[in-house]
């Protein structure tokens, strides 16, 4: 026979569930947009190697120097890029002086923490009507470098 829910029981369940959802929501929001400063971002990054996603001509290595310069190296046959970078904390976006790389590097969040990633397609954003916005992750391999 089904157990009859009393009014107190119903209220108790709702209160418990609402409280649990509020806690989970707060945790979710905190994990989604953790504050990241420019200093924390500086360092050397290696491109991840996804199994199926073609990574095009994205650089194999990216170095965000603490002095505000940026080095992009590889893949073979591609010239190294040297430019200046700055961090847009509001948009969580790496901006560069070189327009080819500007707005191509951004931060996405994961359960294990934030990750830098780079848009693979090199067609400028405003000309790419098909929105080829697949991005490849970059994994940090060393702590901030000093000038």
């Amino acid at each position, binding site marked *: 026979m*089904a157990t009859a*829910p009393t009014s107190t029981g119903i209220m108790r369940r709702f209160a418990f*569930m609402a409280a649990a959802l509020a806690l*989970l929501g707060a945790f979710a929001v905190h994990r*989604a947009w953790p504050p990241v400063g420019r200093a924390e971002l500086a360092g050397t990054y290696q491109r991840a190697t*996804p199994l199926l996603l073609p990574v095009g001509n994205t650089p194999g290595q990216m170095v965000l120097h603490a002095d505000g310069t940026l080095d992009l190296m590889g893949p073979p046959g591609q010239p190294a890029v040297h430019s200046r970078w700055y961090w847009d904390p509001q948009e969580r976006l790496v901006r560069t002086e070189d327009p080819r790389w500007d707005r191509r590097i951004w*931060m996405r*969040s994961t359960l294990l923490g934030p990750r830098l990633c780079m848009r693979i397609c090199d067609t400028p954003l405003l000309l790419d*009507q098909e929105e080829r916005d697949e991005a490849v992750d970059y994994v940090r391999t060393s702590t901030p470098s000093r000038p």
Partner: protein
Amino acid sequence: MSMLWHRSMRAHQQINWMAVLLLLFMLALAFLPAWKAVAGLERGATIDLHRDEAFVQALLEGHYGQDPTYLGGGMWYTPLITWLEALLTAITGLPAAHLIVRLGPFANLLAPIAFFAMCRQLLGPVRAVAATAAYLFWAVGQEPGWVVATYSHRLIPVSFSQSLFYVELMLIDKAFRTGRQGPALVAGLGAGLTFLAHAAPAMIAVLMIGVLTGIQAVQARRNKDNRTLRLCLTSCLFAAIGFLLASMPLTWRLLMGGMHVANREGFLFTYYALTWQHIGVLLHHNLTWFMLFGTAGLVLMLRRSGKLGTPRRARTILLSWLILATCLFIYSYSISVLDKHMGINLPALLPTFHFYFYASAVLSIFAGLAFTALCQWAWSRVQLRHSPQREVPRADLVMAFFLLIATGCTLKYPSYATRRDVIAVRNRDLAFQADQPGAQAAAVIRREVPWNGVVLCDLDLSVWPMLCTARHVVATASTMGNPYLDQKQREQDNALLLEGLEQPRSDTGGLLAQYGVTHLLAQPAQLARMPLAARWFPHELFRNDKYVLLMR
């Protein structure tokens, strides 16, 4: 007995309210990144939003039913969203572009709400919660929001119109459950209204009414039940009348203007990840837990597994939905391949991704069903092993299940909130917003060029800054061109006209007159290569760093 019934109802209501509470939790989580994605934007970068802005502007200027891009063309795009946007623009007094870009996160909330309501009607509140969680947080991954059925912040027809489709499925379910003509008429009206928002969901809905009628008719015929047979055919007729009535604002104009499709480009567009050369991208996006659960749900559904607890009608609706979306997808894909690679022109429906979109929506339901079945199985194993005699109240079990789903959503949330559909789209919007000369030129064009004017410009400029202005051009991008006008001829003539401004051509005057060209829009560097421009367009109306507008 009455007491028992009362208690059971109370428990049922309690579960319903818990489901609503969880829906609110999921909606709040989904809304937050969407809202952040449009913060501070005055206009979206997406070409579809520019097209809609042009239709809104045309409507506000009193040119209902006219094509804002090609002079003399009629309405060709499904108008419901632009009607709503025009109404809200008129009420609020906000610029259309501003309203369209900011309204998206709010208006598109209708989609998950309608999805939940539809699942609740078909499958009950518990499975509806699981399916909605899959739809909101697991279906999309890193694919664009216009390819996968989910909540997205852009007010583009594909995203908005799904809400009408889910409501329409509820109406179809009711019509076939009651077997009466009134609900059938309402279902037809719903399909017509859906058609005004977008053709893809309307096609699936209309075909589904046909399929369900067919199934019912065959069953009635087998049972030699002529009364039911007559009733179901009459109901289908009522649904057809309802569809025609509700879709009249568009179908009337299409029928009056002739249905011959002269520009197939828009219909043949294929989402790049669905092409053979990008199969890796497709697999990368689709080898996921979501797809695994979706497939498991489908298999259980096909095997008529009692584990899913799906009522028979719901099963028929869900399976016919998937089969129809898949067949339409295969047909559209074949048409596109035959046209592009073999030059064979068969009647085209719509771009393939629209049907992929609706197949993904039903997969969300299957994923939710499979997850619920898995949890039920796991609980039965636990109970069997540890406390077979102890009965746990159903409300407690459901609450635990809901909290498990909420925890799953929370764990997925960081990547969901910063998914490509949010971050990359906002990134593009911000890059676009930085183009102030373009916005300035668009404002001037709208102010200076009359409705009957025609602006000559190259195809790139016809998209931005021209498309949103609701002012006519000789030719625009093929996917934005009126499908019932000869796009190729226009593109050729546009190129000849621009060439005629660089070197003398005998046909320039004739073509300018033929298209009623009144203005020229060019970039300063482009204009420097057009020595004859001043002869045909002697008056300079506007100039900034990137654009020059001249008048004849």
